């Protein structure tokens, strides 16, 4: 095959005036970029292996390391950009599907950033959250129209944010511990993803949403009964229409036991559920789960945001789901084909607006709660999602960043230097759940303060007043069609 045409994506710059050859970078880099050279008697590096995860930079006690993008460039071509050329080199060399991790990284428009929030001026008073209480409590589940009817099972959240589904296997047990602990402390919920609940975390079961996905890994009647709610996963935003594959080398003892599969066996989740080829089939599974849990737990159905999402959501509502989770095309993943991640699905903003509108028009909006997912980056995104019609949001990537993820997008290699997307014992312990959970708690408490500030600014003392209140949003730089689908007016209108 000859020489590889791949050149380093990043270059390590080591300031030898500061480097004390302590070897901390050597010990911290699972990609073996840094090494101690016996002949030169100093620490050196191999740029080609660097994934730009910043572990060495953060750990270097003298600040001697910088990682820079390799400035070597191809002759300018607006069509054949660097990524297009490099991906061809990679595929010509390997003959394989290109894999990637985290969410869509291509420069598609971010519609959250094209919507602006309102605030009260003169004609109605704004509220100071430091002086007056502002309610962020949220209930997820079917709300009956007739008040005499018994209230179906609800999830009670202290704030409208939950941790989205990330399986034990795709992420480490220490990451799961951090999420579970934080959800418990914050009065919200976390989601096991497809892979079951580790027995050490069963004490957090009342704060846990368990997932039933196409591989049914880790699912049993005991698990369903223990959990706070059950989520049927049809698809995920990062890879709509694609199944999952946890390679056998990550299926160590604990993962195997939790997933209920043999040690070292590949865990393959099929692309579809082979017992769900229609809404009627979905209804059967929804009610099978409701039967199994004595109609005491809400059942959620998670789908990726795709072209006909409004009709799909309507079908899910009619299939008896209590909660619909819509995952936009920027949602993250532990591993997905690059071409799928970057090209399939639609933005969550449009999907959310379309679904909320459709369910209202059909008079069944009260039958389900809507949870929006797929790159909620900050509290403003949360507030905008609520105003567009979401009952709550899921955060996955944001939570992982709070745990130390530096977005190098190499989750699929299993060599996560931050101890998140890995099963290697020496890497897993890098994430101390005491620290991790505290960071998550801090993040969401900060968001809660900000959400209250934004609500107060709009003169509202409760999240309920904002839910589906699109008059609080204005579009900027959007076309007529985009404004119509989002159901909002243009700024100044």
């Amino acid at each position, binding site marked *: 095959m000859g020489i590889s045409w791949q050149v380093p994506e990043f270059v390590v710059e080591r300031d030898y*005036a500061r480097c004390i050859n302590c070897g*901390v970078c050597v010990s911290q880099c699972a990609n073996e970029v840094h090494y101690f050279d016996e002949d030169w008697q100093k620490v050196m590096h191999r740029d080609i292996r660097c994934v730009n995860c910043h572990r060495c930079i953060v750990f270097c006690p003298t600040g001697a390391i910088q990682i820079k993008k390799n400035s070597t460039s191809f002759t300018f071509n607006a069509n054949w950009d660097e990524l297009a050329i490099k991906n061809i080199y990679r595929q010509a060399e390997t003959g394989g599907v290109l894999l990637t991790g985290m969410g869509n990284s291509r420069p598609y428009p971010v519609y959250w950033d094209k919507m602006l929030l309102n605030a009260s001026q003169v004609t109605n008073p704004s509220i100071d959250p430091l002086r007056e209480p502002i309610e962020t409590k949220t209930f997820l589940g079917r709300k009956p129209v007739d008040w005499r009817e018994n209230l179906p099972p609800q999830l009670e959240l202290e704030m409208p944010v939950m941790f989205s589904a990330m399986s034990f296997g795709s992420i480490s047990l220490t990451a799961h511990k951090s999420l579970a602990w934080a959800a418990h402390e914050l009065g919200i919920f976390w989601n096991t993803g497809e892979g079951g609940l580790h027995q050490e975390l069963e004490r957090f079961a009342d704060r846990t949403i368990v997932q039933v996905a196409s591989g049914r890994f880790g699912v049993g009647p005991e698990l369903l009964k223990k959990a706070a709610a059950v989520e049927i996963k049809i698809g995920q935003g990062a890879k709509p229409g694609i199944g999952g594959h946890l390679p056998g080398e990550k299926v160590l003892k604990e993962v195997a036991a939790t997933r209920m599969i043999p040690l070292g066996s590949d865990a393959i989740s099929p692309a579809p559920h082979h017992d769900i080829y229609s809404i009627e089939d979905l209804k059967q599974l929804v009610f099978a789960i409701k039967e199994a849990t004595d109609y005491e737990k809400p059942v959620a159905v998670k789908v990726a945001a795709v072209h006909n999402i409004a009709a799909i959501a309507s079908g899910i509502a009619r299939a008896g789901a209590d909660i619909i989770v819509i995952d936009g095309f920027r949602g993250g993943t532990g591993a997905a084909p690059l071409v799928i991640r970057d090209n399939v699905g639609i933005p969550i903003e449009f999907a959310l607006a379309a679904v909320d509108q459709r369910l209202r028009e059909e008079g069944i909006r009260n039958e389900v709660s809507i949870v929006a997912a797929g790159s909620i980056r900050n509290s403003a995104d949360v507030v905008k999602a609520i105003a567009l019609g979401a009952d709550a949001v899921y955060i996955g990537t944001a939570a992982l960043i709070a745990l130390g993820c530096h977005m190098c997008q190499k989750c699929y290699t299993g060599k996560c230097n931050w101890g998140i997307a890995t099963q290697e014992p*020496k890497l897993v312990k890098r994430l*101390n759940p005491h620290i991790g959970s505290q960071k998550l708690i801090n993040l969401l408490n900060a968001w809660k303060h900000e959400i209250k500030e934004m609500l107060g600014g709009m003169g509202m003392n409760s999240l309920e007043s904002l839910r589906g209140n699109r008059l609080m949003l204005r579009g900027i730089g959007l076309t007529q069609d985009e404004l119509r689908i989002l159901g909002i007016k243009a700024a100044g209108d």
Partner: protein
Amino acid sequence: MKKIYIRKDYCLGCGLCEIYCATFHSRYPDSIVKAYKLSASKPVSRLVVEKMGDDACSVMCRHCREPMCLYSCIAGAVYRTGEGAVVVDEDRCVGCGTCVLACPYGLIKKEKVKEGGKFLALKCDLCGGKSELPQCVANCPNEALVWREEEEACAM
């Protein structure tokens, strides 16, 4: 008394504790670069990071209730401070190494810290109360080292 406790499950074996310890006990306690670049000999850490396979563990003087080093010192250089730390008076130490042999944990080093100087017994002094937390605890990136009262630590 407050002591340094080790949580092996979280120790990464990165060695930052050694670097901060060695720097703090060097001629240039405020600058790692100076401590390592300007000192005549390599700064010596008072603790040791033990590694075996995926496990790692930072170990330092336990400040025993029955300190063998103190009992064995021929020069009367090892003493217990008011706070309970077992430390070495470097002026009195004759560098004989008896304490090195006596320590059941092997956590005392015999080194020359100054060019042409005498051998000294070097051990953890809990940073002599000179900083709020011992340097290794303050700079452990994963809270694998904690500064706790003995009773609390037993309940950990």
